[in-house]
């Protein structure tokens, strides 16, 4: 099981190495290479799991099954493509004097720190360590949000720190209650290991687990960005450097949702009721609708897309909450396509902001005339995220709708309404930015749009035909989470 250790060690080494050398000129390329190697390792890991099934290694410290292995690959993939984008982006920021050497060191070092925390959240089998690494992810990124040291960015970072710190503290209380319930049935040494807990889920005390789940959902839900705990999210996404927004939106939110679902599996086993699912459905639906409405009132382009992230995370939480094979399958697919498309959008938005020198949507105009690639990238990305066929988001949203019609038909109109509102909210802002008149003296910049094309290409592929190995995987994960096959 050497791949897991290699993966974690590589990121850990990256933290130390970049803390010393992060200011050098070609360091962005090295960051890309490290993330590239990580991606290869995760693919190796995925192939191993594909052939051997669930792996429990390192004295049960790490658990890799069909649910988390594809998220690990996705994390490494988005981490890699974002680092491809980040290298020239950060070099540009340094050139125009927005960043100093010291801050670049911090940036690259914490990029790896964040990746390490994400890999740990996904691979660990210990619910306590999962909490520790989730908090670690906040700590790693909090100084990156305030990287530009403007009053706004410091405010955003403070908000992020306090809200997420306090929020996630509730999840620790939930984890302690979980441990308490588990230690009542003996074997307290292993009582936080997910595999052990899952095996004995039916023996756990349902009353305690119900209370625990409320705390866990609030705690990790703060990180997912569920309304009304979402306040930090648009601020942190809009004020930090753009590569950070891409990984926060594409990875951090997913992994927080992953933590909730892992816990839900235990709670469902213990209570044998649908209480955890109802809670998730409620929070998810409210987030979905509220965020869709907020899209209309935004003026900053990165805030716009962070509200869109809240909306999609809400939909996934809703789908996971609904349970059942179809909804779970749809949620897993939606997690993947949302990560791909949203990080692609943030990359394009980063370029658009560098072309125009602003993040205010009222001042971003005529992208398609200035630099067609960026303009088209933004337009196609928005089309994809709004859920148009033939992109993958359409497929997954359609499946969610189908599952809703089957189980809770009276909720379908609300979902349709939300999708419609969100579509209008996105396009009223995007249309003038892409097609509007080009302002005087606006020039194209050096942009690397390969990550965008690759991401959108994958999203398109997933919309047209899901490759069989991937759908096998999703089916296995669905079987694991919902307990029934598709």
């Amino acid at each position, binding site marked *: 099981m050497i791949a897991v250790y290699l993966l974690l060690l590589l990121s850990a080494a990256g933290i130390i190495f970049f803390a010393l050398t992060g200011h050098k000129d070609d360091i962005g390329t090295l960051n890309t290479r490290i993330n590239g190697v990580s991606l290869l390792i995760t693919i190796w890991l995925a192939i191993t799991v594909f052939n051997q099934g669930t792996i429990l290694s390192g004295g049960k410290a790490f658990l890799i099954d069909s649910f988390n292995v594809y998220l690990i690959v996705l994390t490494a993939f988005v981490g890699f493509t974002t680092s491809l984008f980040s290298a020239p982006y950060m070099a540009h920021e340094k050139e125009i004097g927005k960043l100093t050497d010291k801050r670049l060191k911090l940036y690259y070092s914490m990029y790896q720190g964040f990746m390490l925390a994400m890999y740990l959240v996904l691979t660990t089998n210990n619910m306590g360590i999962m909490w*520790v690494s989730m908090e670690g992810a906040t*700590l790693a990124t909090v100084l990156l949000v305030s990287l530009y040291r403007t009053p706004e960015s410091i405010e955003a970072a403070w908000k992020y720190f306090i809200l997420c710190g306090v929020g996630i*503290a509730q999840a620790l*209380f939930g984890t302690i209650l979980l441990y308490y319930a588990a230690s009542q049935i003996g074997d307290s040494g292993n009582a936080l290991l997910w595999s052990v807990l899952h095996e004995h889920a039916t023996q756990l005390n349902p009353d*305690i687990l119900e*209370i625990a789940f409320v705390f866990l959902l609030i705690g990790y839900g703060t990180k997912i960005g569920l309304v009304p705990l979402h306040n930090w999210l648009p601020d942190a996404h809009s*004020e930090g450097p753009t590569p950070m927004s891409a990984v926060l939106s594409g990875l951090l939110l997913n992994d927080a949702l992953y933590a909730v679902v892992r816990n839900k599996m235990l709670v469902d086993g213990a209570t044998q009721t649908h209480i955890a699912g109802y809670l998730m459905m409620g929070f998810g639906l409210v987030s979905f609708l509220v965020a869709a409405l907020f899209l209309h009132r935004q003026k900053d382009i990165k805030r716009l897309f962070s509200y869109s992230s809240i909306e999609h995370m809400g939909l996934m939480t809703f789908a996971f909450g609904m349970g059942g094979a179809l909804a779970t399958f749809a949620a897993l697919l939606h997690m993947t396509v949302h990560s791909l498309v949203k990080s692609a959008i943030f990359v394009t938005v980063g370029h658009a902001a560098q072309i125009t020198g602003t993040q205010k949507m009222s001042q971003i105009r005529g992208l398609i005339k200035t630099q067609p690639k960026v303009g088209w990238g933004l337009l196609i990305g928005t089309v994809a995220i709004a859920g148009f066929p033939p992109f993958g988001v359409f497929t997954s949203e359609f499946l969610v709708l189908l599952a809703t019609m089957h189980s809770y038909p009276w909720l379908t109109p609300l979902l349709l309404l939300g999708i419609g509102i969100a579509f209008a909210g996105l396009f009223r802002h995007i249309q003038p930015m892409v097609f509007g008149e080009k302002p005087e003296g606006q020039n194209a910049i050096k942009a690397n749009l390969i990550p965008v094309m690759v991401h959108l290409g994958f999203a398109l592929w997933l919309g047209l035909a899901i490759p069989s190995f991937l759908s096998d995987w999703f089916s296995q994960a669905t079987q694991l989470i919902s307990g029934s096959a598709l």
Partner: protein
Amino acid sequence: MNIESQDFYTQAILSMSALVGLTSFLMLGQGRLLRLIFVFAVQGLLLTLTTSLAAYSLDNPHLYISAVLTFALKVVFIPWMLHKQVLAMNMHRDVEALKNNTAVMLSGASLMVFSYYVLQPIIHTSSMIMLNALAVSLSVVLLGLMLMISHRQAVAHVVGFMSIENGLFFAAIVATNGMPMVVELGVAFDVLVAAILFGIFFLHIRTSIDSLDVDLMNKLHEVDK
């Protein structure tokens, strides 16, 4: 439940939880920053004592390590760092006028009742003592939140944040005799890093708004005005 009929350890734990709860209330009504930090350090000390007591009575040596960690972090390092900040900003003579102090204290009391109410189902599975201990920990968490809402100074927010951690820690020791070692070390590491980051943030906030009053940080809105 007759407290005299319990064994010594249980009685000690119950008294400790009462004292920890009391310190939380003391912090809630405190307008002077230095005193707030002092009470926070006292709460940390109580936590250290509880941990050592549990380690001794239950013969669980790894709890001694967490006792030492708690002492180093919550009694020495964090109060020292905050103390230094308050002196550097020359805020040690200011008294923060707390709005609606009575209402805050009353809602604090109701939060404690609420904690008992929430955790009531647990009583079927274990003793009254466990309910008391867990309910006090939960109310320390909630009172920490209340402290952050009612105070405006960033220093007070950090104290609130850290006292939430104290509440969680207390729950972990009393209810489950401490989490597994690796988790406890991880949590302690997170707390340490968080404390250092708070120090860095104070510096940034001071250079940015020339004050540590977080109400002055109001540039970002949900929707643009």
